[in-house]
């Protein structure tokens, strides 16, 4: 236990160093040019952070999930885009690791990921599904050569161009229902990406998430044995919401820190005066406190439920509601915090080149409501609330 704790602590410290030393330094350029945070990801690779969540016996770092969440928060404090790339990669890793079921192809793949520090991108959303991840149009189609192929119209693939591998949701076969989905891992040398859009957004600019037509040919064992609905409810959805929330909290925390630095600097200039902005900072802190508690408490519920045999609690309606609430609440609260920070820092926060700039923070967190649109989640929740017993 103590070894594990030390290892995890060392990992968080490493990430903290990368956040401060690399991510922070390049954050403005990444944002300005809407470019991939290559330096951060390179540093994370060198620190073997991309395989941190993979068990030691498969060559990974074996750190706890909570530690990955803490790492997302650390990175989020310095560069939202770096944190988002890291988080999305870890979501894919977690989905594989938690649903391995002794599938030897995937065990080998994880070993390879650890050795080569491969970066996985996600291809879950699809044109024509109305944003419902629980349905697919594209299907895994058996070919003459024993391999299966697919072609998927993805409206966004974050850092697709920079990914080594893709984790893709598909219908199991050409004659399957839209909801009969599998998750397939397509290897760099097996897929092609044909861009169908551009990426020049308000914030989270470094995630480089245009649309693509994804085409690939894969072997049948590259489909995860566990059906996607279970991967989704037990892992992909809660893990996404938790890791995203952590990085949004990280961004919001930095906005708070900058507002606090601003107020302290102002107080130094006027010692003894009661500053109106100091009161506003207290208001801001209580908003941040709500966000922090929400994120922490959801993480704990997830790790508790994950530790139970069968992880059955994660498949309940109450659990779906819980982690949907996390997404909604955190995605609304994070930009609120950043907006209040801007209110405190004023023009110094509005300018891009001061120590108190919080414009990027605000722009980045405003994406949170759109990553799986909150209104769609509310619709799902509304249905669940009508039938769920306990909530």
């Amino acid at each position: 236990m103590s070894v594990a704790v030390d290892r995890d602590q060392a990992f968080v410290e490493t990430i903290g160093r990368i956040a401060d030393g690399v991510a922070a330094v390049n954050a403005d350029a990444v944002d300005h040019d809407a470019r991939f945070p290559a330096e951060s990801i390179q540093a994370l690779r060198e620190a073997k952070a991309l395989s941190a969540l993979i068990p030691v016996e498969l060559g990974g770092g074996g750190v706890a999930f909570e530690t990955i969440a803490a790492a997302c928060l650390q990175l989020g404090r310095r560069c939202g885009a770096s944190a988002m790339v890291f988080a999305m990669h870890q979501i894919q890793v977690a989905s594989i690791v938690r649903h391995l079921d002794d599938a030897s192809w995937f065990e080998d793949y994880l070993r390879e990921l650890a050795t080569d520090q491969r970066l996985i991108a996600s291809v879950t959303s699809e044109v024509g599904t109305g944003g419902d991840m629980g349905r697919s149009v594209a299907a895994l189609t058996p070919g003459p050569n024993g391999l299966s192929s697919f072609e998927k119209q993805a409206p966004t693939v974050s850092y697709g161009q920079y990914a080594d591998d893709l984790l893709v949701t598909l219908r199991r076969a050409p004659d399957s229902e839209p909801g009969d989905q599998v998750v397939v891992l397509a290897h760099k040398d097996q897929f092609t990406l044909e861009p169908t859009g551009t990426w020049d957004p308000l914030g989270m600019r470094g995630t480089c998430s245009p649309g693509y037509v994804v085409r690939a040919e894969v072997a049948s064992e590259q489909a995860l044995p566990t059906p996607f609905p279970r991967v989704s409810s037990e892992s992909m959805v809660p893990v996404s919401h938790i890791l995203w929330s952590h990085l949004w909290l990280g961004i919001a925390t930095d906005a708070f820190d900058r507002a606090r630095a601003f107020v302290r600097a102002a107080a130094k200039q006027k010692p003894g005066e009661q500053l109106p902005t100091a009161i506003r900072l207290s208001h801001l802190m209580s908003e941040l406190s709500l966000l922090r508690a929400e994120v922490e408490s959801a993480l704990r519920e997830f790790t508790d439920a994950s530790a139970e045999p069968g992880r059955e609690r994660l498949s309940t309606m109450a659990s779906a509601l819980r982690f949907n609430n996390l997404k909604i609440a955190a995605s609304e609260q994070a930009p609120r915090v950043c907006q209040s920070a801007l209110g405190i820092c004023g023009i110094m926060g509005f300018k891009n080149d001061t120590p108190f700039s919080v414009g990027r923070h605000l722009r980045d967190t405003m994406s949170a409501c759109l990553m799986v649109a909150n209104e769609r989640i509310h619709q799902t929740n509304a249905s669940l609330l009508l039938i769920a017993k306990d909530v």
Partner: protein
Amino acid sequence: MEQIHMGNQLLGGLMNELLSGMTAPAESTGPVESTAWKIGVETAGPASDDVDRGSRFPRETVEEFKRTGLLAALVPEHLGGGGASLAEVAGAVRAISFHCVSSALVLAMHSIEVSNLVRHGASEPLQALLAEIASGQLLIANANSEVGIGGDVGRSICAVESTDEGLRLEKEALAISYGEYADLIVATARQTPDSEQTDQVQVICRRGAFTLEQTSSWDATGLRGTCSNGFRLAASLKADMIYPVPFAVVANNGGIQATTILLSAAWVGLAEAAAAKAHSYVRAAARRSIGTVPPAAGQLAVLATDLEQARGLLAATASTFVMLETSPEMESPNFIASTRNLKVSTSELAVRIATAALTICGIMGYKRDAPYSLDRQIRDAHGALVMVSNERYLRANAVMLLARKHL
């Protein structure tokens, strides 16, 4: 980044819809606004992205302001100007803002100075200056802010100094929006080097007689085309180019009021642009599934209540200004408080409306290069909150409320 997809095949149709939907808001205040709307459509709008990305002065739009006489809209007709009311110019600012907020702010900030000159420039030299503004379509910038006074324009550190070569002013201006492009710069200063900080005059510096040394740059989240760099202003002054009344009179008797009304006009135009995009988006969604009410329509209805409030406040305050033009009530603390409220409310409503529009348009609003992009509106709206800080206005009102007998 996950998103609700909208097929690319639809984009062409939506773009058409959007452009057709983007006509002038129904109630125009008249020809000044119509002129402005045309400039917005033909010049300010097309240039707006480039202005924003380059954080550059919207020179082509300001050229059009000059060509059409908008810069002198407030100058009385007998002095060669348009003789328009402040309400009409507010309409113009709002129309431009629909297409480019930075351009609208240039028109607004310039027009505040013209309004002040019209109200307080009764002296012959100042009347001549007004005539020259009309004939030459001179652009006026403002250098009232100052390093070291913490944003309180009711105080100055710099002073008008008498030297052997005449009157001089040196001022560390926190920001002079589009200062490099201005023909005239007005600035507050202590009346003499011995005066109290609050004993201020406002002086007018003319191009050729001033120099600007840049002390800070303007790379901001939004309102990027205002080029609000910091400058060290050094100017030779003519005595007759100092306002004949104290600055406090200029400010309280029309200055604050014109400022809040014209800035608010920019925020309302911004909000209307965001609302128009959300409206088009919802209508397009409804056309795709005839007979149903898209969920976003409900959000749009809420947004519309906010927009109605912003428009109503602006219209009411602008027409009150016109009504009080020659009345001592113009200076009444109630009306001043009311105009401050206008700025606070419209800027907050603009943020709310732009944010709600983003929720409605989703990823199509988040992208810069999508037809429903709300990128600039979101960024500019947040500038509305900090540009002449709402906090400062509310604090000023708080003090005023203590003295007031009735709310």
